[in-house]
């Protein structure tokens, strides 16, 4: 039987505010345990929360970017459950009046566009960190109280690839909005997935499982693929899916059940009496809308229309805000869009990936990059040499001119200089020479290659070709 896959994702994005959601403690990552805590985020008796206005603003930004309705009236509620990473044993969250409702995010997969519905986005506070060791656990509350935006999709996702693409697009948006670092390793972006299968065409949803411990986009995709296979096998052998929470074991590449005894959670939500409601007025929404940055989708359209980039190239460049920024900065100094995009998507991306580096941490300036492009464009260095120069630039941050000089990489474009080499090549390759004369044009390319080789890559291939052509004709007449 064919099954239809139904996936919904819940993303928790840590908002990049300076201070926590309800107190003035710093949100900086990686500090010594329990050094960023105060009576409020520790939930000490008598302390009270006051909302960070930036958290609210960032939440609205995301809601708008995801085409949600920002709710005119929104409030906080207490979600009650006992856990040692939760200082008050309740989490300040939002229940029935979330900040944003009903939006969508458009993804593109194999040239097909699809809208993934956004069910809701709401603000809440993060919990602390638990470290399990031996017969006890240790608690660090530095993270407790950092603002989170929980973004929940509709069950519109129908494959692991779509889920992956959704996350990539969402991450791009959050980065563009400058509201979240989106670093899954540091936990600033976290994702849980709900997945169920149903026979093709069936109306009712199947029993779902919830996947947790997904530490990368790849893990989300792999875990979903695994879970589809597992559920399918169960269904095909006539077994029942148990509604449960599963943890993804990355090294074993399988999911395993989190609890043997699933305790029905009863969170006893009720309105947070310590925080009066929030009335989001149209003027406020408009003010935030007015300063929203250009988002990847719009930017891509503009890059195609304005600079004639291909859909594919534009897609890659806008996927990362910093890359898109770098592209436009380069373009301002050197208006050759296609050349720039080729270099960004090709060699530069290669250098960055191999160093596991982001474009923000480049050790050279846009101006240096433009110098490199100019050298190539004016044929003063070969493409091959240029790639080497780029590697050096990434390593040392030195300017391309200096590298070219040091490594003696300037292209030889002087016909006179190349003549000697051409003579040697013709003399040493009788067969190819004969082939050329008998009309096999390919043979000329081989000879050019030999010139390049002998010149250690410095010969300008165009000039080399001219010189060879001339010599071969002459050589023919002499014979």
């Amino acid at each position, binding site marked *: 039987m064919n099954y239809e896959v139904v996936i919904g994702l819940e993303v928790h994005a840590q908002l990049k505010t300076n201070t926590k959601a309800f107190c003035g403690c710093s949100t900086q990552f990686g500090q010594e345990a329990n050094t960023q805590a105060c009576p409020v985020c520790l939930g000490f008796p008598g302390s*009270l*929360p006051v909302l960070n206005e930036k958290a609210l603003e960032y939440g609205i930004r995301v809601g708008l970017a995801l085409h949600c309705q920002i709710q005119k009236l929104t409030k906080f509620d207490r979600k009650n459950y006992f856990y040692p990473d939760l200082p008050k044993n309740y989490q300040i969250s939002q229940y029935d009046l979330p900040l944003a409702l009903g939006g969508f995010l458009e993804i593109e997969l194999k040239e097909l566009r699809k809208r993934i519905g956004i069910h809701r986005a709401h603000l809440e506070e993060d919990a602390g960190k638990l470290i399990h060791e031996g017969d006890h656990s240790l608690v660090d509350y530095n993270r407790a109280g950092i603002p989170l935006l929980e973004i929940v999709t509709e069950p519109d996702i129908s494959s692991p690839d779509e889920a992956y693409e959704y996350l990539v697009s969402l991450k791009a948006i959050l980065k563009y909005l400058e509201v979240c670092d989106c670093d899954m390793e540091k936990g600033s972006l976290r994702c849980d997935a709900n997945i169920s299968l149903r026979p093709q065409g069936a109306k009712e949803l199947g029993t779902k499982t919830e996947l947790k411990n997904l530490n990368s986009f790849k893990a989300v995709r792999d875990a979903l693929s695994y879970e589809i296979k597992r559920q399918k096998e169960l269904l095909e052998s006539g077994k029942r899916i148990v509604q449960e929470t599963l943890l993804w074991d990355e090294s074993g590449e399988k999911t395993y059940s989190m609890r043997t005894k699933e305790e029905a959670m009863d969170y006893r939500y009720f309105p947070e009496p310590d925080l009066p409601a929030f009335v989001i007025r149209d003027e406020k929404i408009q003010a935030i809308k007015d300063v929203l940055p250009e988002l990847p989708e719009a930017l891509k359209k503009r890059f195609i229309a304005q600079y004639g980039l291909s859909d594919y190239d534009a897609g890659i460049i806008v996927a990362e805000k910093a890359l898109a920024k770098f592209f436009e900065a380069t373009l301002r100094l050197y208006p050759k869009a296609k050349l720039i995009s080729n270099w960004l998507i090709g060699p530069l991306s290669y250098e960055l990936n191999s160093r596991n580096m982001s474009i923000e941490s480049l050790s050279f300036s846009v101006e240096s990059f433009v110098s490199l492009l100019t050298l190539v464009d004016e044929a003063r260095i070969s493409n091959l040499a240029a790639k080497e120069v780029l590697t050096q630039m990434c390593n040392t941050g030195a300017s391309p001119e200096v590298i070219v000089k040091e490594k003696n990489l300037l292209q030889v474009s002087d016909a006179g200089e190349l003549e000697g080499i051409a003579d040697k090549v013709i003399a040493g390759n009788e067969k190819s020479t004969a082939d050329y004369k008998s009309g096999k044009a390919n043979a000329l390319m081989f000879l050019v290659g030999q010139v390049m080789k002998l010149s250690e890559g410095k010969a300008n291939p165009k000039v080399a070709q001219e010189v060879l052509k001339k010599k071969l004709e002459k050589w023919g007449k002499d014979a």
Partner: protein
Amino acid sequence: MIKLYELTAHELLEKLRRNELTQEEIVSGLNKRIEEVDSKVKAYVRVGELSSSDGLPIAIKDNICIQGQPTTCASKILENFRPPYDATVIQKLREAGFAIYGQTNMDEFAFGSSCENSALFPTRNPWNLECVPGGSSGGSAAAVAAGEAIWALGSDTGGSIRQPAAFCGVVGLKPTYGRVSRYGLIAFASSLDQIGPITKDVEDATMLFAAIAGYDPHDSTSVNRPLPDYSASLGKDIKGIRIGVPKEYFSLSKGAQLEGIDDEVKRSVEEAIAQLRNLGAKVKEVSLPYSQYAVPVYYIVATAEASSNLARFDGVQYGLRAKDAQNLIEMYKKTRERGFGYEAKRRIILGTYVLSHGYYEAYYVRAQKVRSLIANDFANAFKECDCIVTPTSPTPAFRIGEKTQDPLAMYLSDIYTISVNLTGIPAISIPCGLSKAGLPVGLQIIAKAFNEEMLFRMAHAYEQNTSWHKQKPHL
């Protein structure tokens, strides 16, 4: 010879100003008085000057955080807890030059109306040591009544300042919700709690209230609104002021849930109303039809909030921890089993129950709706009157142990005070009589939100023309 311990704060300040007394003499006078009578009254849980200051000493209820000083809500679960910060009211008192003098007993976590639920010991009523001082701020009221404190802070969630003030024959004010910062008040029911003064007379109440009131950016429910000069309310006449008397509060026939009002209380309050009329006020009957539901609404809302507020007492970060637990859940359960007293457990369980799945709508949401109706009652009543007058409590102080077996009977003793918290409006209790048995009776005056001036004006006018506040217990 004047008895130093009977003087009010404003009288003491006057003597300080005239150099007839020194602060050291005042403090040593207090120390002496406590030595003499506290073994009988047991108002304090901790005593001794906690801050150096040349101002007047003040007693603080044990649920208001004082930096570095044990603050335990009279509960075992907070044994040895020392807050790393001062409550906003403590900060304000320090800035105003008060000397933080001692901490007073209370019902554990303010759960109670008799001070019998303290995990430490019950406090006794200075007027009759066999009787309760009321609660939950029983320690503060008893201390002021017994001359063991010049004045004190209490907290009021359902009557916890006014009822003990009435039982002990002193003045107690529950301010408008949002007028006094709750930051540092260990929460019982966040939407109802307010800190307020307990004093020997109305003038002292205005002074202490002015010192603690005002906007606090650390409390999201604190109101940013200018403070009037409360002393200006003193000595004004009350001619033409319209006093509302809720018919439901005085009729015994209306609904069995309104516990029968004691005859002596009724008579004292009626005499007080007559006195106010003599002073020029106009008395009219008003109706608060939904007030008969105030007690059930209160016990749902207050326990629901409390169950959540008290979840943090779990043995992880502070306070008591059961050390013999094998795992986390066991540690939670044993800690909370041993750390909380009966009433705390009972209320946490009730509050958890009314919020739990399947009951939330039926109990919690319904209660919050009826709460709206109660608030509406008051809004309507205040269209016809400037203040409302009622007894503070249906009876004078009851005997220790009399109601401990019957939580419902205990809850009903808050019947006149609870609506005020549910609605957020201010009310004051002042002495208005003594029963034949020699126990004080309290008169409650209720005003519109942010109109404490009306309370002070009425209370002061009454006080100036009566002498109940000058009656002292014999210890």
